[in-house]
């Protein structure tokens, strides 16, 4: 039925095909699930040769980047997804598409999935153009070949369509395409966190080896680098052993290596091609299994397979590292939706969906997308008496409504850390499926949080905290601003608009958050072969304004300014007024937003304001926990950045319109 419709439509007009099919199939599937999978029939792929890409409406490419966004958080959203493979012919993609489909239904957005009916990159590139012609609100895609895909993706970006990459890509910088973010596995972090897990499990690790079946492949080398770095940091020697894709030869290589290196007792393999010969070698030894099960040796691996899962269950293998393809699909739709609806942007150029650790605790766990979920959020302040928290709580409310989960927000009715700690204990009593909380004081909160974790309740932190390592509390992840990344990306943006010599104006030198911002800023300049320094000012606006003026007089080369909040931006604006300078005379960016900063962004004086996106702290916390309970999706990294979220000329209108609610 569907096929017949497609065929008959194709005869009518080659180009109308995709759009029409889209509409028809979309209507046919209108039973609540808005996801549509579209694959052109064989032969269609030739219709969209690279030359055809000019069919995108002429003149569109010249249009300036303007907000593609109406200020209506509830308006219908249409997203196009283009990927180089489909569930129809590659089972891996069924998980990705399940994520897309679930997100589509839960977030109530319309997503159409386009893909070729066999692996065909040129056809995929054409599909990007064809999808863009449908004027979607956002485009999500796999950047399987950045060179081939650059031209069609750029056309979408030039039209003001927000673009998110998933599963295949390397991030906007490495790919040379300015899309928002790439969702995929952080390979280095996978190796690093894997190494840390081994060290935490066994106290007697004396040497480690990363068994690499494809030395030279950047992804696999990064995994080994992370692993050896983690062990070296703990004073344990670790090296890389090159094996091949031939299992028998590899088994011999592993065996020979171990004979020559008796102290090595931590083994990391990078997939079934390394794990299988490793298991073969272990079985060949008398003591192999026993040593692993007793914890004298530890083995972890990337990827999962029936063999790997079985060995995780029987205690031979500590973990398998999953890139969590479900989250790639779900996350791409979610991020695109948040950009379109609320102007909330992804914080980092690369968003890690993995490593997701599969361990004895969760191996074989089945997903249940309809499971009821009860979350308790404990925070040190409430919207009732601190307006900042209204935005966080709005995020919680929105996620709660979309996901159909129960969330109770608890907080003291005045700032009271001891009462907040007690609330954590009281929340544990309710035996919720998960707890999210602010780690406002990692010493004071440690005991109650640890009790929650000991009771088997998953815990994550939002807004206040420093990550499980720095806080010394083994919660899942911390959602907050990545200060260094904010400074670094801010520096890159100022360089991109012509900055050559930068200054980071720091009103609180010594505060680690603010120092991190400046470090990121100066690193961005240094990395680009330029120079930047830090200028210390105070919280006194008049004195600071004089300091800035004196500094510029002494350093006339300075042309790029970063301030770290209103306390730096206001004296800077004072200095501009004093010297009669305005838009076009200086390059300025700042952290935070204030009425003055928003005015100056609109006036073109300030390039951007960097926001920690508190909405995303509430929204992301609820979403991560719901995905964990229902889909066994584990937060990939110890810190999940919600900011920097850049507010610039392109989105200042929506940000201003939604201020106090979503921003």
């Amino acid at each position, binding site marked *: 039925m569907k096929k017949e419709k497609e065929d008959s439509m194709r005869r009518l007009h080659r180009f109308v095909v995709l759009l029409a099919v889209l509409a028809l199939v979309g209507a046919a599937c209108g039973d609540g699930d808005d996801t549509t999978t579209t694959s052109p029939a064989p032969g269609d792929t030739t219709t969209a040769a690279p030359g055809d890409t000019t069919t995108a409406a002429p003149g569109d490419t010249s249009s300036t980047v303007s907000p593609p966004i109406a200020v209506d958080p509830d308006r219908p959203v249409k997203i196009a997804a283009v990927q180089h493979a489909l569930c129809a012919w590659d089972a891996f993609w069924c998980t990705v598409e399940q994520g897309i489909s679930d997100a589509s239904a839960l977030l109530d957005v319309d997503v159409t999935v386009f893909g070729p009916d066999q692996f065909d990159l040129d056809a995929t590139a054409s599909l990007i153009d064809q999808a863009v012609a449908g004027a979607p609100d956002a485009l999500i895609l796999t950047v399987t070949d950045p060179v081939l895909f650059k031209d069609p993706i750029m056309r979408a970006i030039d039209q003001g369509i927000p673009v998110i990459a998933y599963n295949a890509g390397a991030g906007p910088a490495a790919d040379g395409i300015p899309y928002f973010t790439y969702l995929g596995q952080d390979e280095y972090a996978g190796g690093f966190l894997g190494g840390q897990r081994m060290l935490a499990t066994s106290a007697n690790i004396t040497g480690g080896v990363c068994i690499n079946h494809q030395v030279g492949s950047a992804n696999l080398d990064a995994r080994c680098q992370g692993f050896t770095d983690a062990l070296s940091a703990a004073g344990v020697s670790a090296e890389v052993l090159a094996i091949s894709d031939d299992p028998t030869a590899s088994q011999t290589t592993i065996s020979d290596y171990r004979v020559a290196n008796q102290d090595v007792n931590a083994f990391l393999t990078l997939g079934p091609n390394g794990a299988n010969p490793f298991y073969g070698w272990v079985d060949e030894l008398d003591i192999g299994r026993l040593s692993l099960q007793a914890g004298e040796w530890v083995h972890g691996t990337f990827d999962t397979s029936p063999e790997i899962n079985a060995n995780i269950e029987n205690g031979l293998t500590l973990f398998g590292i999953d890139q969590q393809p479900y989250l790639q699909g779900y996350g791409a739709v979610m991020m695109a939706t948040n950009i379109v609806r609320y102007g909330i942007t992804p914080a980092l150029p690369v968003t890690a969906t993995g490593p997701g650790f599969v361990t004895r605790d969760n191996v074989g766990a089945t997903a249940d997308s309809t499971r009821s979920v009860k979350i308790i959020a404990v925070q040190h302040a409430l919207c009732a008496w601190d307006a900042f928290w209204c935005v966080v709580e709005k995020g919680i409310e929105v996620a709660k409504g979309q996901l159909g989960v129960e969330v*109770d927000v608890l907080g003291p009715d005045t700032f009271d850390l001891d009462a907040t700690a*007690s609330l954590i204990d009281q929340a544990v*009593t309710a035996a919720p499926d998960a707890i999210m909380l602010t780690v406002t*004081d990692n010493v004071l909160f440690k005991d109650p949080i640890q009790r929650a974790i000991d*009771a088997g309740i998953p815990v994550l932190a939002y807004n206040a905290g420093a990550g499980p390592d720095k806080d010394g509390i083994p919660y899942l992840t911390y959602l907050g601003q990545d200060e260094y990344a904010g400074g670094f990306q801010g520096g890159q943006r100022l360089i991109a608009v012509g900055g050559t010599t930068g200054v980071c104006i720091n009103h609180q030198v010594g505060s680690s958050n603010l120092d991190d911002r400046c470090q990121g800023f100066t690193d961005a300049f240094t990395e680009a072969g330029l120079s930047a320094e830090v200028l210390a000012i105070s919280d006194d606006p008049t004195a600071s304004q004089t300091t800035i003026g004196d500094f510029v007089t002494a350093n006339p080369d300075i042309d790029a300014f970063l301030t770290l909040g209103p306390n730096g931006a206001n004296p800077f604006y004072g200095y501009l007024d004093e010297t009669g300078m305005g838009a076009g005379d200086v390059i300025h960016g700042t952290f935070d937003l204030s009425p003055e900063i928003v005015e100056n962004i609109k006036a073109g004086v300030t390039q951007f304001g960097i926001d920690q996106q508190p909405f995303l702290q509430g929204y992301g916390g609820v979403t991560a926990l719901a995905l964990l309970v229902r889909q066994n999706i584990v937060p990939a990294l110890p810190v999940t950045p919600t900011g920097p979220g850049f507010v610039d000329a392109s989105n200042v209108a929506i940000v201003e319109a939604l201020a106090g609610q979503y921003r």
Partner: protein
Amino acid sequence: MTARTAAPVDLRHRLSRVPEVVALIVFAAIFTYFAIAAENFATPLSISNIATFAAFQGIVVVGVAILMLSGEFDLSVGSTFAVASFVFGWFLVNGYNPLFALLMALVVSAGLGLINGLIVAFTGIPSFITTLGTLLAYRGIARAIGGGNRITYRDEPIALFDWLNADIAWLNERFSPVANFRVSILWFIAVALVANYVIKRTRYGNWVFSVGGGQAAARSQGVPVRRVIIVNFVITGLLAGFASTIQFAWRLSVDPLRGDGLELVAVAAAVIGGVKLTGGYGTILGAVLGILLLRTLEQGLVLMGVDITIFRAIAGLILIVAVVINTYLSKET
């Protein structure tokens, strides 16, 4: 007086000799309600939370109740509480002997109570005004000691912390999930028992009631009114300081707002427990029930998913109802 009203008046008189009766009934009613209505309420973890959180506040309540029995009250206990933790923390963080740190915290908090007592006893300024002033002043002292910041103890925990407030592991581990009974509960019980004995069985206890009943009458009976008032303020400050060190031994961190509002919780607990604001009437047991009732209410509301901001509203309602009933019961006929 007719025969028809004789029976209720008789009952009222009998009940009026048990000032904690209202608190007991309300506590039982609330506890039963939550046990039925709130999932997970009647669990070891929930009960242990109520007891543990009531413990350190309860020690403060006992002090406040003794003071109220003598007709005075102390709004500065929350600030004294903060000062004690800051003193304790400051000496610990700066490497002093832990026992010396504890001693200093107790001496300072007793000293703050003494200042309150001297002002009230010798100037005749009402304790409400006096301690409203010291509430602000002592909070300033707490901020000054911490330089406006927190004091956090980051070294290895010391044995003194276990004495003050260890996790009662052998008991907690019998339950799943692990319960939250702590040594502070034992301190609370000990303090309450000693206070109860002193108030009910000693001459000093009689003096306290006598001063609370009316200073002129007490003085005419030879009760050293000023001494009783001063000693009671010192006891109140000391107990606030002791409770504070118990809390610090668990939390290991104190911020400048610590204990803010505790004075009202303490007065509320005592009043709900049947202690009269005007003095001369009430029991330690009643005050203990009062604080248990408030902690039970909070834990129950959390479990029922009721907005926590409603807690104060309900607590206030219970307070008013308790006062109305207590006033009715103790009314002279």
